[in-house]
């Protein structure tokens, strides 16, 4: 394959397309077959989603026989799908949180801004989001039972990653250490959490944790779910970091030790910078996994983006537009996660390039 590229480095586009689509009768048949299948699938879908769709209007317009997709429903229920039961006059608060977090994400995504100063900034941002949503001091307080939609999906994912990171780092180091008891504890924690489905962890957080607390003590439902998500993904993150630790050549450790560095200095100055750098793309992919998996919060009755979309189709005024609701939610998830996965690919290329130089 590399030979073809070398032979014609600047093949014109139409040439590449003709090569890819019609070089030989077999390939031509495959092209035509694929085209037919795509049309067979896409034409009815296009008709439903665009031609027959109701873009504006009321649920009465959508109830007509010929009506296709009811995008008017998405327009009408947009605020509910994004913010669920947050009191409508106060919805600027979650909107502000979402805008702020997305901006901060975009800034932190650029390697130019990578520094340890980002850690306190993010911790402050998470704390600030909590305070703004909960409304402390001068603002009207809103119970976490009313929180929902996109802010929940975003904050639970980001807080999950942020708090899972130190735990995962300790677990990965413990699993690598030469201390037997510590190593076994770490292995048991990691393997148990990776061996059970996330639903089981969420059930523990919902049903068992309230019983296991000393009588009288309670933890907020959302916080319990957050702890469950954090612990669950810390096990996965620990394995990612362990893979990074294994990449660092033994010679690096030996050289550092012979220079007289202490164990802590060895980790902080030599091992971790190389290990973490090697797994940044994998961590981004795990972060995407966290965003996708926060949708399981819907099963335990927390109104994340998916549950808010699902619930919006039970509105008596707009009953049963489930497909439209799910497609909207899918589009939001797709935009977030696709951007993330492209970013991860870009980062991988960039970091590899830097290593090679």
């Amino acid at each position, binding site marked *: *394959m*590399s030979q073809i590229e070398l032979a014609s480095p600047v093949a014109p586009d139409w040439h*590449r*397309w003709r090569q*890819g*689509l019609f070089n030989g009768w077999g*390939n031509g048949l*495959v*092209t035509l077959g*694929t*085209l037919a299948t*795509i049309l067979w699938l896409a034409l009815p879908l296009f008709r439903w989603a665009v031609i027959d769709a109701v873009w504006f209007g009321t649920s009465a317009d959508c109830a007509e026989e010929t009506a296709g997709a009811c995008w008017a429903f998405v327009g009408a229920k947009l605020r509910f799908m994004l913010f669920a039961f947050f009191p409508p006059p106060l919805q600027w608060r979650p909107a502000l949180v979402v805008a702020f977090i997305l901006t901060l994400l975009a800034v932190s995504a650029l390697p130019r801004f990578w520094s340890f100063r980002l850690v306190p900034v993010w911790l402050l941002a998470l704390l600030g989001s909590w305070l703004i949503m909960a409304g402390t001091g001068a603002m009207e307080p809103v119970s976490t039972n009313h929180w929902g939609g996109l802010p929940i999906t975003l904050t639970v994912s980001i807080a999950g990653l942020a708090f899972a990171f130190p735990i995962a780092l300790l677990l990965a180091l413990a699993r690598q*250490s*030469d*201390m*037997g*008891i*510590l190593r076994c*504890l770490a292995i048991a924690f990691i*393997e*148990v959490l*990776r*061996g*059970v*489905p*996330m*639903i*089981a962890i969420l*059930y*523990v957080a919902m*049903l*068992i944790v*309230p*019983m*296991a*607390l*000393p*009588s009288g003590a309670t933890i907020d439902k959302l916080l319990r779910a957050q702890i469950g998500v954090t612990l669950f993904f810390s096990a996965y993150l620990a394995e990612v970091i362990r893979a990074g630790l294994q990449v660092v050549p033994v010679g690096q450790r030996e050289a550092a030790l012979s220079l007289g560095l202490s164990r802590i200095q060895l980790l902080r100055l030599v091992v971790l910078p190389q290990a973490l750098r090697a797994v940044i793309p994998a961590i981004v992919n795990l972060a*995407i996994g966290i965003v*996708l*998996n926060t*949708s*399981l919060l*819907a*099963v335990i009755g927390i109104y994340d983006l*998916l549950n808010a979309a*699902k619930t919006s189709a039970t509105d008596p005024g707009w009953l049963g537009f*489930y*497909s439209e609701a*799910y*497609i909207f*939610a*899918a589009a939001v*998830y*797709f935009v977030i*996660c*696709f951007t993330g*996965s492209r970013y991860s690919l870009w980062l991988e290329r960039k970091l590899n390039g830097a290593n090679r130089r």
Partner: protein
Amino acid sequence: MTRFLQPGPSGPGPVLRLRTWIGPLPLQQSLLFVGVLLLFAVLGQNTADSMHRMGLTPGFAFLSHQANFEIGESVLSYSAGDSYARALAAGVANTVKVAVAGCLLATVLGVALGIARLSGNLLLASFVHGYVEFLRNTPLLLQLFLWSAIIHALPPPRGAYTFLGSVYLSNRGIYLPSLSIEGVPTIVWLSTVVLAVLAAVLLCRQLFAGSAFYLPKSAGVALAVLALCYLALTSLGFAASVEIPAKGGFNIRGGLSLTPEFAALLVGLVVNASASISEIVRSGIQSVKSGQWEAARALGLRPAQILRLVVLPQALRVIAPLMISSFLDLTKNSSLAVAIGYPDLVSVANTTANTTGQALEAIIIIGAVYLTISLSVSSVMNVYNRRVVLRGEGKR
């Protein structure tokens, strides 16, 4: 008189071995271990106290009590009034059913898509690429909800969509042709066929190892063995017939029927897993360096032989462990059944927890079943990995 130097023991004694295993800071480690035990003890005591306050006795005695709920569908026969243990076993059987069917179908679809991705046809490859990207960037739960909504939006059985007059799609479920076999107990014909296939594989390995036309010859042997099997079984009174579902009044009868919940879960899991499997297959095949292809071609091997003798053995080393972990993911993901109403283990355990209040025990059962599956599969996988690594590049 000469004193011979006695050779010491061949290795460190048990005490020293334990000391080396524990490593540095033994006291602190033991304290940590005791601390963890204490934490669990305190949490356990609190839980037991809370359960007593709610009028529950901790323990698994409830398993033998009568369960007064129905289960939508079950491989094991179960009806309301049977014990909770029976209900949970039915849940496990349902989980196993959807996981096994899902892994098989996802492998078939995933391998096909992975090959399509590598086919060199630009349109097909981009189409599959789009499919994979969509599935990997939306939550599985959402995909399951969407499949469930789609199946429930199908027409009722009277106006069911039909393909070739033998497959029916309706909101009451999906109906497929089935193979019905009479005359011989299932276990007999199934074991005969499995044994015959094994025998055929061994025979082919012995007869044609390394020869040209390996595949056509083996296919011939396999056909002959299957024909022999069929003849032998027929003489025992074996009769196979294909049963095609047909519309009758308000329903569809005959054939293999899948309930809407099972169909939505199965399709959702298969489609989702096929995306990751296709990526695994693609990256596995691409991980074989192009020099291997060129060298094999220079030796005069035909494309099929290159794939079978040179590329696949090397690619499988990359593919197999990833494939197993995506099978485990599929099995764990089948727990999302609880959200779309298929009675798998998690869903039955959830109902059990709600009706008896024994949430802790229900979750322990869920955890134990999934851990048994994951840990046993991954320990088998570790053995396999060690074997292929040793045979190949040595320890990395």
